[in-house]
């Protein structure tokens, strides 16, 4: 009994301590603009917490963790699930217990008790509305491949996609496309023949689509695209009907975290109903709890019965990180893109 009281006391003391002046260091591959509302809400839930947020590109983040140049973070967030899985597999994370399930039937949104997904972001097509006036818009991968073949002139130099070679997320999406869809190779060749514009980031592609430099964007991150499309009448978002990959943005507590309880609390918050609601209503991201939808999803496309194909957090993502596998894939991809 006495021991229990003592341990309770010590718990109170530590919670008091970190409530006083604790720094939560988050290294993330997410736009600060997209995640800011959540950071604010977390600070109100845990007053006197100072959040240090540092934004990286997915590969930079991965490299930073492998060969640290900065102090170790408490929480690592990235949408490049394969790199996240690799980091966890290699022992960069520490387990967190009692993190709530967002909804049942989503076992793919968590790996062991170390890596936790908290968003569900579809990979979409984006098109320039003016360019497609009086033209059929491709709603499936197959239709796109067909149009690329049949209207090669229309798409020539006017279609853009992620750079699989320089962007972690781009590589993940391209490789998972290959797993999910058997005709990916052909589609890639078509993209190559159309001299597709290759970019590192969704934001750049979106800008070029808005201006009309590009008429079609293939495999763009749905969260950013929808956020942009909600306020921009020039572009439209298509959630492919045959299958739509969904990226799970995930977070883990770094093994060298300064304050693991606070880091765990942040991850718990991300997956809590409050956190999910904030994601749905105030950010450009899309919540893992799909019943909440997203305020950017003006046409309620997320609620459609599309064949969503969430990229499962699990060791199979390690496959495409194999040196040889990656080399082969990128070789083929470059060959297809640059015939």
């Amino acid at each position, binding site marked *: 009994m006495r021991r229990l009281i003592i341990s309770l006391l010590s718990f109170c003391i530590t919670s008091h301590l970190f409530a006083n002046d604790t720094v939560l260091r988050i290294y993330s591959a997410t736009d600060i603009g997209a995640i800011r509302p959540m950071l604010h809400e977390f600070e109100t839930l845990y007053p006197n917490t100072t959040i240090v947020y540092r934004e990286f590109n997915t590969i930079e983040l991965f490299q930073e963790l492998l060969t640290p140049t900065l102090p170790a973070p408490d929480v690592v967030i990235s949408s490049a699930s394969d790199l996240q899985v690799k980091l966890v597999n290699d022992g960069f994370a520490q387990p967190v217990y009692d993190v709530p399930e967002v909804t049942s039937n989503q076992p793919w949104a968590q790996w*062991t008790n170390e890596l936790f997904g908290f968003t569900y972001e579809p990979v979409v097509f984006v098109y320039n509305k003016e360019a497609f006036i009086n033209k059929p818009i491709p709603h499936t991968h197959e239709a796109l491949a067909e149009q690329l073949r049949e209207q090669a002139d229309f798409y020539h130099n006017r279609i853009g996609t992620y750079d699989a070679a320089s962007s972690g997320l781009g590589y993940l999406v391209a490789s998972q496309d290959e797993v999910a869809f058997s005709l990916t190779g052909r589609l890639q060749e078509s993209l190559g023949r159309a001299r597709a514009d290759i970019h590192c980031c969704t934001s750049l592609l979106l800008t070029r689509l808005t201006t009309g430099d590009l008429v079609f964007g293939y495999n763009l991150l749905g969260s950013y695209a929808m956020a942009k499309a909600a306020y921009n009448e020039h572009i439209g978002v298509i959630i492919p009907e045959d299958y739509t990959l969904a990226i799970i943005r995930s977070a883990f507590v770094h093994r060298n975290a300064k304050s693991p309880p606070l880091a765990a609390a942040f991850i718990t918050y991300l997956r809590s109903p409050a956190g999910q609601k904030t994601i749905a209503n105030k950010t450009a991201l899309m919540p893992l709890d799909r019943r909440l939808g997203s305020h950017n999803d003006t046409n309620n496309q997320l609620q459609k019965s599309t064949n969503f194909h969430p990229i499962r957090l699990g060791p199979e993502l390690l496959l495409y990180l194999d040196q040889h596998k990656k080399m082969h894939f990128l070789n083929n991809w470059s060959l297809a893109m640059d015939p």
Partner: protein
Amino acid sequence: MFTIKEHLKKLTSSRMYSLRQKMLTRTALLMCTVLAILSVGVWHYANTSADYSYDRLLSSASVTMLDGINVAKNKVHIDLPYSAFEILQLAPEDKVYYAIYGPNGDFLSGYSDLPLSPSVTEQASTQPRYELHFYKQQKVRFIVRHKRLSERSVAGNVSIILGQTTIARDEQMRDTLYAALTTLMAVMAIALLVMWVAINRALSPLSWLSSQLVSQSPMENGRLPATKILEVAPLTHAINNYRQQWLDALVAMRDFIADASHQIRTAQATTKAQLEIALSSKNERVDKKVVEAIYQDHTKLTRLTNQLLVHATIVHRGDHQAFTPIDMHHFLQDIITYAVRDYAHTNIEFEYVPASENITILGDEIVLKEALRNVIDNAVAHGTSDRSTTHGVIRISLETYDLDCRVCIEDNGQGIPENQRMHALERFVKVGTNTQGSGLGLAIAQSAALSHQGRLILSKSELGGLAVCFSLPRLTETLHASSNH
């Protein structure tokens, strides 16, 4: 420590204990031991079966991965198939590590810092090797498998080392273990329960018996109710038998006391009557004839009393017999010496026919002496009573048979007719014209013979009179030895 010692003391002390409790405790202890032994076995089994099932995952995944290793453009070409990792997904929580080594042991892909590496000497045909290592602070089970590449450009073994953490494996092991242990414990509990019921059931005849015995008086001639339990039947039978013997002895005693008191009272009444007649006579002097009659009656009474006491002694000495080896030759010589001295005043001739060898029997000297004397007295009394003119002969002989010896006392008197011989053995029965005897002599002899596991045989003597033979079991050498021991 102290309490344990005390407890042990309690256990070892000779005070009363409950059989039921003891049996239950011992059974429980035994079962706990069995459970402990079985638990070790179950633990081993759970480990083996978990290893077996998850090793198969590793094995098939590694085979699939080797499928993706080929030779292309004169180089080892690695294109790992997605299915390999999907197989490993069957243990969804587990982390995966692998490394691929080329024909010369050169590292090709995967994790270069695994705690094991393929040995060059290993052949592709050999069975895959499984090893458990600590890697990145966790238990990881590794498989090492080889594949022979035999192109002209690349010849030799490529090896794959594939490892998986043991979360799912350990969980399955625990599941199996707990399931098996739960079953075991349930079985043990049921077995204990059954034991408890069985012990109660087995002990129930005991309480039934005691309740039956308590409710009956030992003096009553009631038998215990028949039981259908085979194991209990001998016990009730024995109790009934035992009780019957006591009751028989009691009846015999009662009869004897009744007979004896009747005989003694009759004799006393006769004496008293004679005395009264003598007192009521007007003569101041007592007639000598009357005194003689009184003397005769008194002698009879004395003899009767003595005989009764001897008889009682013989019969009841049987309860605590003090048998000793008796050398019959010396014993009979003593008896004859006394008899000759006692009857020196009569003209009776004693003959002794000894046996050809030494004979020893196990017996009670006092009882036998009493019995033989009575038979000799009888012989003296009857063998000569009506032939006062000729002198009587009493022959005492000792013969041996295989297992028995026979002591015979013969006289040359009238004897007893064959049809009355059995009758003569009964108490207070006087045969023929005899009026002097108490009717106890032969009864005493009979009792003595029976108490020595022998017989009393009445027959006609060569001398013309009665032959009374004691047939008694001999003490053989082995018996002798054991009795000495």
